[in-house]
């Protein structure tokens, strides 16, 4: 094990109200329940191809997207990877249409043409989930370029995994965003494994955030299972970007509870590693913070129950939606 968070319980932040914390817990619990439902649907052969679940990493996307929304701009944009269900939902994509897309229904976010790896909802600023590792970092640079060109205060938030930091597009993107001082937040979710390989076996440095130094931008590491810390550190980067001071690289240390994709039982992980990380589960940690704030156990359980109910009803609705008509096959190729 190359990393464990410094403490099991996360620190409080007085800047966040109970409502702020409860809203983040709701979103994280919805994402957890949605991923569980997608896994269940997969085992029932309702999901085609592959899926990449973000179970265990919910604090990264929920904390960072919450920071983007604070004093947000309508032009703010987020791009993410094929492990993107959580990020797209964190931006506010509807649960039913997200699940419908995973099922390949015409009511899905992408009319059933994208699927699990390409969830996109530009109406909430979710500008795509990209299935080629690192491919969306250059596109995030373009989203930032548009903001700069039009003089808006919009920011592009770009999630990617630790594996992306070894592909050329990562380096080209950080460099270009830095020299043009573009409003981009590069957010690396380091879940310690690039597909099936431990990051320490593929990468010669301990801290991926150190790579920021090569591009003269701030590089910071954060406990990615601490939603309060993620929100705070991302807020600093977002405000910096809005002020025209350029990009930031954030490395959030986290852990995926499941394998890389649906076919991966993750047997390459050392015995006990998953169990240890579950003690640092971002949802349990946020539960305990709310309890420390004086919220009752019953109230916390109600948040979870409501999140599960939202997902259950979204799943039921999406499952009842129609398969796409064949006429959709040839639509949307050209404008």
């Amino acid at each position, binding site marked *: 094990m190359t990393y464990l968070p410094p403490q099991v319980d996360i620190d409080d932040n007085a800047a966040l109200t109970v409502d702020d914390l409860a809203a983040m817990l709701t979103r994280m619990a919805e994402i957890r329940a949605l991923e569980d439902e997608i896994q269940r649907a997969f085992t029932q052969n309702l999901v085609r191809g592959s899926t990449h679940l973000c179970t265990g990493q919910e604090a990264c996307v929920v904390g960072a997207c919450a920071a983007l929304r604070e004093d947000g701009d309508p032009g703010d944009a987020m791009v993410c990877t094929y492990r993107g269900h959580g990020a797209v939902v964190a931006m506010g994509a509807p649960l039913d249409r997200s699940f419908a897309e995973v099922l390949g229904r015409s009511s899905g976010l*992408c009319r059933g043409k*994208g699927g699990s790896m*390409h969830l996109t909802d530009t*109406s909430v600023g979710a500008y795509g989930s990209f299935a080629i590792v690192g491919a969306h970092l*250059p596109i995030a640079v*373009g989203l930032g370029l548009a903001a700069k060109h039009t003089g808006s205060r919009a920011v592009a938030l770009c999630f990617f995994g630790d594996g992306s930091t070894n592909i050329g597009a990562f380096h*080209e993107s950080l*460099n270009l965003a830095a020299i043009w001082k573009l409003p981009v937040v590069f957010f690396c979710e380091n879940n310690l494994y690039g597909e099936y390989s431990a990051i320490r076996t593929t990468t010669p440095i301990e801290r991926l955030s150190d790579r920021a130094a090569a591009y003269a931008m701030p590089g910071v590491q954060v406990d990615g299972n601490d939603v309060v810390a993620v929100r705070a550190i991302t807020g600093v980067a977002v405000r910096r970007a809005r002020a025209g001071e350029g990009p930031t690289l954030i490395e959030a240390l986290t852990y995926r509870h499941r394998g890389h994709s649906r076919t991966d039982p993750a047997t390459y992980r050392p015995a006990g590693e998953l169990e240890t990380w579950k003690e640092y589960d971002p949802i349990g940690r946020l539960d305990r913070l709310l309890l420390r704030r004086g919220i009752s156990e019953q109230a916390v359980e109600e948040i979870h129950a409501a999140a599960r109910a939202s997902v259950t009803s979204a799943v039921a609705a999406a499952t009842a939606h129609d398969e796409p008509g064949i006429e959709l096959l040839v639509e949307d190729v050209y404008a």
Partner: protein
Amino acid sequence: MSQVTYREAIRRALADALAADPRVLVLGEDIGAAGGVFKATAGLSDEFGSDRVRDTPISEQAIIGATIGSALKGLRPVAELMFADFAAVCFDQIANQMAKYRYMTGGQVSVPATVRLVNGAGNGFGSQHSQAVENWFLGFPGLIVVTPGCVADAYGLLRAAIADENPVLYFEHKGLYNIKGELPDSAPAMQLGKASVVRQGTDATVVATQLMRQRVEEAAEVLAADGIDIEVVDPRTLLPLDITTIGASVDKTNNLVVVQESSAAGSWGATVVASVVTAHFESLDAAPVLLSAPDTPIPYAGDLEQAWLPSTGRITDAIRKLLAR
């Protein structure tokens, strides 16, 4: 109406687009202060500023990604790939991202981006700076691929590409930069996806683009002196291909010759032949001729490179042989 070069037509199209629409920006390697290695962007940085005519690092993936991302937000970016061969470096951005974004997202947003790629052989740049690479992209519906072969098309197709809602790959042939032609002072808007009948004729339809189109026009003059009257069709857009115009011409002439600056396998010329044979078979008096370059990389030495490119002599020979049956 004035006589300008193909290079100037491109420069003027960029300048006019920049002047007409604040959403237009131009980016690429050495295009600003240096004016581009082929000088197609000369003076634009001075006229429109370095924020709208942006010099980039040597980072083709970032250039194309920045083009896609800014287009998604409603800008009209025009990227330059200094040599079309460099498209191999950013193939993912063009083939997997730019081409598919609209479809994969169910049509939520389009990518109104233009990429200019400097194409073609004949100038001694060797194997990695001379290819005509439009064939690499024919299998990516969602892209529009244009190949201007004369001064008026260079201007008109570039303005149309920048105005279009779809991603357009605009190939400009480095062997044509110095050709001259008429460019109206207020050039009309041109439509993408339409072939042009460059020369009317009755004996054979000869389809070609860019440098090969210029050579076919020369060949037409040579053949005309011998009473052979060919019709020259420039597809101008290779994806989607205007097979209607080509097919109508073959219906009239009953013969098809395609001349292209690449190997035959997987080429647009092979697609034209296949389309005509399957849809206009009854019109053909003889098997179509596909005149291509040999199956080798492009050589450096002058004599070898000239032997690689289909010459005007090879074109006239092929047409005479077809019609002598």
